[in-house]
């Protein structure tokens, strides 16, 4: 197998005339990071609410939260993405659906991908939040209630501050997953990293350079996130609990 390595391909001006192929990679990196970080905000917010609801003493609320988790965990991410992207605009009232379809294609793709990735990861975050709350001794909640806190205050001042600190390590792995899962957005045409890898193959005919560069960028994201989260873990770990000393 004779393969002509040509790493300088990244410095060549791109086929569209704007910038080099390296700038395509950076563009992809930018979208991967934007998509993942935006989705992570949704995942943390929705996941916290759903996770808390799973533990409250109200059958209906905890039932709804359980249903949310089961639905989002048992349907493949790709299918969910296609449902957000292709199905939702059809099921909305006609005006809204049409308004959505008239948006810039990139806006449509990004909106669907953020919503999909955020709500998908929220189900996983919710499970961690629930596990964190349930790992606390029952006495903590009872002590809070006995001191005259309302249930909401017990969650706000007693349970959640502890739970969040305990679940930092498992959340780290969900945070890493969201970057990897963001690659699924390539299927609806969003120009994130793995899309750019395929585009570079089509335009430059140097598949190995393109794939190696993109793979290294993903590894770099992974290492950076792991490094930052380790630092966070050390700061917040609770003595006597998982990860604590």
């Amino acid at each position: 197998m004779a393969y002509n390595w040509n790493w300088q391909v990244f410095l060549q001006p791109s086929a569209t005339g704007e910038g080099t192929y390296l700038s395509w990679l950076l563009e992809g990196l930018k979208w991967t990071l934007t998509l993942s970080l935006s989705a992570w905000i949704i995942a943390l917010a929705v996941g916290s609410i759903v996770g808390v609801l799973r533990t409250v003493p109200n059958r209906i609320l905890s039932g709804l939260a359980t249903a949310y988790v089961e639905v989002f965990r048992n349907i493949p991410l790709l299918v969910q993405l296609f449902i957000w992207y292709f199905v939702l605009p059809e099921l909305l009232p006609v005006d809204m659906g049409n308004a959505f379809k008239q948006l810039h294609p990139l806006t449509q793709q990004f909106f669907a991908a953020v919503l999909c990735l955020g709500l998908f990861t929220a189900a996983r975050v919710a499970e961690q939040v629930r596990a964190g709350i349930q790992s606390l001794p029952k006495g903590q909640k009872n002590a809070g209630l006995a001191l005259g806190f309302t249930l909401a205050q017990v969650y706000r001042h007693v349970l959640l501050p502890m739970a969040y600190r305990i679940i930092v390590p498992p959340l780290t792995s969900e945070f890493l997953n969201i970057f990897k899962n963001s690659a699924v957005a390539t299927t609806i045409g969003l120009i994130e990293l793995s899309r750019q890898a395929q585009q570079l193959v089509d335009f430059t005919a140097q598949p190995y350079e393109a794939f190696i560069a993109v793979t290294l960028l993903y590894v770099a994201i992974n290492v950076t996130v792991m490094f930052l989260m380790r630092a966070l873990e050390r700061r917040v770990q609770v003595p006597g609990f998982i990860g604590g000393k």
Partner: protein
Amino acid sequence: MYEFDWSSIPGAMPLLLKGMAITLEVTLTAILVGIVWGTLLAVARLSQNRLLAFLAAGYVNLFRAVPLVMVILWFYLIVPQALKAVFGQGIGDIRLTSALVAFALFEAAYYSEIIRAGIQSVPKGQVAAGLALGFTPGQTMRVIVLPQAFRNMIPLLLTQAIILFQDTSLVYVIGLSDFFGTAYKVGDRDGRLVELLLFAGAVYFSICFTVSRVVKHFQARFSQ
């Protein structure tokens, strides 16, 4: 309001079943190869041999750092060229082969982490006792440690299998017609994408939800 028309699904059943067969083929191959190769990786990672442990850790960490989509694309690039180099021209559809290889090697990295944790959950005294009874380290691992480790791991291995089953839908990126790919194509062909996508979602949900219930049931029985 959107008017649903589910009529294209019954006629597409044979195609959809064929797609499901491919989904299951990829899933089962990845589970089998993944567990065997994953066990070897886990044992290598825990071995006294520094080089072996380092190589196994590198393999696992690399596969776990890269998105599955990229892994599938990588193997779709490598496998056809490797096959061409070995068998010459005239290979049939290499997409399935590429997907099988990609999923098997990718899942092995994830399985090896579960198996490693399982091996480490077996008390050290078991190893010491095995060695004291005159078993070689290899025999101790095979006859004493691994059987106990696998018993502890069964729920996690099955949960991983459910995730894998869902992930196989990503072969869409190389155009392989698994269950999801077929559903998409039928929907696109008949202009009934909404119905076919919702149907596919419902099918995945029923299968995964049922299996996860069964796993939970097992877990409750095992932990008694």
